[in-house]
């Protein structure tokens, strides 16, 4: 059915068109006859011409011819003597010929006009579409925030979008028609002749230029030029897009400046570090020597004079010796502590299990006589500096041993909890004297002690050392405790190799 419809529609269309011709001629005839009744004469001729014109105009040339023929026959039959006969007197033949010629001419003109009219309408529609499209494109260009403008080969601006207005400050009305270089006072990075040569050669150029804004300030833009050629291939216009890179340029300069500052600061820090190193070095050499002398001579004095000294004086001697030894320990611990900050870390795969075994055997001298219940869980391997990690474990484990001294059934637990965010987390837990969580922040400070020296000996550097070691490994230390209920010390070490 669908296939037969177009021919059907065409046949219907043809019938309509010829029907129109017949109808219009019939109507003209009817009106002429009606008017004839009322004694109006000579109206038939223009009426038939009108019917012909109508047929040609709306139905085309074929129906027009039909209308001419029908009109001629009707005219002859109804309006020329002898009436109601198709007989044409010889003397009236030219009259008919003229009528047909005139009617044909009218039909022809009418058809011609019709064609012209249609063509005009079509081109008007096309033009309208084109205008719509162009308007849409132009408004799209206008919509972008990118700066776009067009100038002809004499550098006169012919198009100026909203982005250009936003960047440079001139409205399209102000900018269009102006000389672009004069308006924008462009400063090119290379001679402009080279730029133009490249543009003509490759049809494009891009680079950074400096331009003036309407408010007088300058702006650095990344500029891209595209050359538009006319149909003959001759350069016609240049389309330019600009991107404001002032901030970027300023940012880059800022970064450069900051880097310079950083360099200076680094040099300063290096100098300070060197000074510190020299300081620690001289402590190591020079502070220990007099201390050794104090101890040495006091010992010799004690040996030589102990018989003549009374009880009190002997106690003085002992105190001198103990104090000097304590100072020696402090110096050693402090030096070790400062060394951790200065020394390079040497990353290797370290077995914590092995380390804990070694540390336990080192502290066994003290623990052998005591009945410590050790509970050591499975410990992982991790990347780190072996000797530093060992020092950290020595401090934590000997602390646990020390602070459980007053317990009849001391317990020390060492274990590991792996958390994805922290890598490896190791803890050392004891049931010793513990500490007040109020002071937890003081635990890891240098020379900070939470116990009196006559309760538990120590220099107050051990946990600071642990913290420094773990920080150097990129990890964290923390502690939990309760007075008289034991303490747990945790440290985390990132699992990845640093």
């Amino acid at each position, binding site marked *: 059915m669908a296939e037969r419809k177009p021919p059907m529609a065409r046949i219907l269309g043809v019938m309509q068109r010829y029907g129109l011709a017949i109808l219009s001629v019939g109507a003209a005839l009817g009106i002429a006859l009606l008017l004839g009744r009322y004694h109006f004469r000579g109206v038939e001729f223009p009426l038939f011409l009108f019917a012909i014109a109508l047929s040609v105009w709306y139905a085309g040339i074929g129906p027009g011819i039909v209308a001419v023929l029908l009109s001629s026959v009707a005219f002859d039959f109804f309006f020329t003597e002898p009436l109601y006969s198709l007989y044409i007197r010889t003397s009236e033949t030219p009259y008919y010929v003229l009528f047909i010629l005139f009617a044909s001419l009218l039909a022809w003109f009418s058809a011609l006009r019709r064609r012209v009219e249609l063509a005009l309408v079509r081109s008007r529609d096309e033009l309208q579409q084109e205008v719509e499209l162009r308007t849409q494109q132009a408004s799209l260009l206008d919509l972008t925030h990118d700066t776009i403008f067009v100038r002809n080969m004499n550098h006169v601006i012919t198009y100026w979008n909203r982005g250009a207005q936003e960047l440079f400050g001139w409205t399209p009305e102000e900018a269009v028609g102006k000389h672009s270089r004069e308006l924008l006072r462009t400063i090119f990075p290379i001679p402009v002749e080279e730029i133009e040569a490249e543009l003509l050669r490759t049809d494009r150029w891009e680079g950074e230029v400096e331009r003036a804004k309407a408010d007088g300030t300058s702006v650095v833009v990344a500029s891209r030029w595209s050359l538009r050629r006319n149909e003959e291939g001759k350069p016609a216009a240049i389309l330019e897009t600009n991107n404001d890179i002032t901030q970027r340029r300023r940012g880059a300069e800022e970064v450069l400046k900051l880097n310079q500052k950083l360099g200076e600061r680094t040099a300063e820090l290096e100098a300070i570090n060197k000074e510190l190193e020299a300081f620690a070095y001289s402590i190591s050499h020079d502070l220990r020597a007099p201390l*050794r*002398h104090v*101890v*040495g001579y006091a*010992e*010799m004095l004690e040996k030589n004079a102990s018989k003549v000294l009374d009880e009190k004086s002997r106690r003085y001697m002992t105190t001198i010796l103990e104090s000097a030894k304590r100072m020696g320990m402090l110096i050693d611990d402090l030096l070790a502590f400062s*060394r951790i900050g200065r020394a390079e870390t040497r990353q290797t795969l370290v077995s914590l299990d092995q380390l804990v075994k070694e540390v336990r055997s080192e502290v066994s001298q003290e623990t052998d006589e005591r009945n410590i219940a050790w509970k050591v869980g499975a410990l992982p391997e991790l990347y780190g500096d072996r000797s530093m990690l060992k020092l950290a474990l020595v401090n934590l484990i000997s602390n646990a041993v020390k602070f459980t001294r007053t317990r009849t059934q001391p317990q020390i637990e060492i274990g590991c909890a792996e958390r994805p965010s922290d890598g490896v987390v190791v803890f050392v837990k004891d049931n010793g004297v513990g500490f007040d969580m109020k002071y937890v922040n003081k635990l890891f400070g240098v020379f900070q002690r939470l116990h009196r020296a006559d309760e538990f000996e120590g220099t107050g550097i051990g946990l600071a050392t642990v913290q420094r070691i773990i920080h150097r490994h990129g990890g964290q230390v923390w502690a939990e405790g309760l007075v008289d209920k034991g303490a747990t010390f945790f440290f985390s070490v990132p699992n990845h190799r640093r």
Partner: protein
Amino acid sequence: MDLVGRILMVEDDPRDRELTMTALEEYNLTNEVVVATDGEEALDYLYHRGKFQTRANGNPAVLLLDLKLPKVDGLEVLQQIKSDEKLRMIPVVVLTSSREERDMVASYKLGVNAYVVKPVDFHEFVNAIKELGVFWAIINEPPPGSIKKK
């Protein structure tokens, strides 16, 4: 009695010298101790220069060397000894207050035979010196050309 090797002690601090001598006394090793108070004197002894111009031939059985010395420091003395064909066989023991790793590394790189940190504790100090003295001056067989006496 065993043969006792000559000990060259290079030490600028008179108290350290006295303490060291006290420690060595216990084994009667003091007779064979020669003292140099700085690096230059140590080199003078080894090269028969200055006040040691007229000393008898022969190298010490061991050299106890402090690192921090006036004029020529310990590491320079060590370097000089170890780069001299005639002296390089002398056993050198660095005896210093410094536990600094870089001193240790530098000394071992230069070929030191032992590195001893002077303990602050007097008993430990005396023990260390005594053991050093006994080992290097009595037990150890020094290289040929060293001075050793009854």
